[in-house]
Each structure stands twice: as structure tokens, then as C-alpha cells.
């Protein structure tokens, strides 16, 4: 292959990577509303569920963006009464990763007081989106 063609392919690779990065960043951290009846076992969290909601964060030791999510969720949990944060380290628990179908970390679940999973975030969620998911979880609770 001649050098000019190789340079063109190199430039195309760079452009494709930029596009992929922009798409990944746009998709990252979006909330997915979980329908149906999937529950979290409090024994897996090693702590009781919150009276209003529980934020479950899945991490590993090798997760570069988990600490920033932990700080953000921790401050949300501190501000809101009845909301607790449970961090689950999957580094040596592939059984839990399989049970909750976690393919990448950070993954965050918003869980209602009965342990039902209401929303799921893959990636770094925006604080406002977490607050919105909490708001969608707790009023249901007030009605029942």
C-alpha cells in the first residue's frame, strides 16, 4: 500500500474514532425505565433497602469512572431522606454480575422500597436524571 493511501486510512480511522466517541458519550448514562418484576435481593447489597429508594451502584476495582459516580450518588443519598446508596463490588463476584446482567461498570439501579428495580443507568448518569428517576420511584410509593 502506498503511503498516501495509508495516510488517508489513518485519517479515516481517526475520524471514525471521534464519531464513535461522540455516539458513545451521547448514549452513556441514559436512564432506562425497567418494566416488569425484577427484584434486588437485599442480601446481595449487604445492607437493608432505603425507606424511599435505594441506589445500587455496580463497580469493579478496574472501573475508571465508578468513583465519580459513587461521589455523585453518595451526595444524592445524603441529601434525600430515606434514600440510601449501596455499592456492589463485582471484582470477584461474577455471579452477581450475571444475576443483574451487568455488562459494564458503572451500572446504577434505582430500586423502590420493595426491592423492585425501577430504572437502570449504564455509564455515568447525570445528577438531574438520577433525581428524576428517584422522583418517578417515590410518588408511586406514596400512592400505594
Amino acid at each position, binding site marked *: 500500500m502506498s503511503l498516501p493511501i495509508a495516510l488517508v486510512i489513518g485519517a479515516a480511522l481517526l475520524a471514525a474514532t471521534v464519531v464513535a466517541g461522540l455516539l*458513545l458519550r451521547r448514549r452513556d448514562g441514559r436512564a432506562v425505565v425497567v418494566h416488569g418484576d425484577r427484584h434486588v435481593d437485599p442480601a446481595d447489597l449487604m445492607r437493608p433497602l432505603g425507606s424511599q429508594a435505594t441506589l445500587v451502584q455496580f463497580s469493579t476495582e478496574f472501573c*475508571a469512572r465508578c468513583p*465519580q459516580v459513587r461521589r455523585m450518588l453518595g451526595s444524592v443519598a445524603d441529601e434525600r431522606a430515606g434514600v440510601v446508596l449501596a455499592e456492589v463490588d463485582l471484582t*470477584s463476584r*461474577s455471579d452477581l454480575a450475571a444475576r443483574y446482567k451487568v455488562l459494564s461498570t458503572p451500572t446504577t439501579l434505582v430500586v423502590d422500597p420493595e426491592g423492585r428495580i425501577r430504572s437502570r443507568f449504564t455509564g455515568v448518569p447525570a445528577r438531574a436524571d438520577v433525581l428524576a428517576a428517584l422522583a418517578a420511584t417515590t410518588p408511586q410509593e406514596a400512592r400505594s
Partner: protein
Amino acid sequence: MTAPAGIDPRGPRFAAWITSALLLVATVLGLAAGSPPATISFGWFAYQPLADATYASGDFAFIAGRPFWLQILLLRAAQPAFLLTLVIALLFLWGVLSPRTQPWSLLFRTLVRPRLDPPAELEDPRPPRFAQGVGLFVVTVGLLLHLLGVPWALPIATAMAFVAAFLNAAFGLCLGCQLYLLLQRAGILGRAPRLP
């Protein structure tokens, strides 16, 4: 769980910029070189345009006495793309064995960090170190396949590593770190649960 002392998260991203630039150059060189040489011909002398005549003929005389397979290996290893990728692989290895003394990390701490504001948060050094290991694995596979004569193995491997390094540098996405969970779930990686 005891985490090691935190590092400035901008350090690994700075290093990823340099690594991705080197990997892009290696990919272009690998593409330009095409398939690894499979035969020895008069064209051999053209493979080392930088070497002076004395060196080339002396080198060739040394190689000529060797078995054919060794001559082929030396030819393939003398390609610029191979040599640059080998340097990148050694830098990855350095980053795995001793992240604090890795040259880009040293450059960041001595020249870049003093000019920046103090970091808002310190982060765990284990994820970037693991990702260096993933990078090392990918480029090593490319180097070995190139030596075996597999066409395009080297530029494909460096292109994959480039994508990961560039996404880390420009977007803060750590593909190597994401890989841990997938490998663990596939049963390839992982460790026994820690005893309490």
C-alpha cells in the same frame, strides 16, 4: 477494601494522548508496509534505507549465515512499523510493572502537573494500570502475528489499541477497564472471593 493512594486522573489521559499519537503513526506505517516479507530477494537492501552500506552489508553477511526462518524473522522485525510498535509495547509493559516511573507519567508530574490547578479529586490507579495491560496484550498479539507473517495483523492490532487509547484521551472512556467485567464473566479473568 483498601484502595492504593490516589493519582491525578489527568495523568493517564495525558499519557493516552501520547500513546494514541504513537499508535496512529504505527498504524499508518504498518498499512504502508503492507504484508510482512515472505521471501528474501535483492529488495532486502531497500528495507533499511537508513542503514549505511557498511552496516547493511555487514548485517546481511551476518544474517546470510543463518537459517532461512531466522532471516525472515529478522527482515520482518526490521520494519519500521514493527520497531515502533515494539517500543509502544515496552512502554505499556513499563506502565503495568511500574506506573509511577513510566516516562509519560514522569513527564506529566514534572512538566505538566505543576502548570495545572490541583486535581479536584484523586482517583484509583488500578483501572488505568489494568488498561495498560490490555493494550500490551493487544499489541503483543499483533507483533507475534506479524513475525509469523500474518498480513495486516500489525496495523489491525495497533488500530484497535489506537481506538481504545484515543477514546480514553479525548472522551475519558476506558475500554480496557470495561473489558475486565466481560473477561471475568466469561471466566477468563477473576479471582476467588476475598476472605473476610
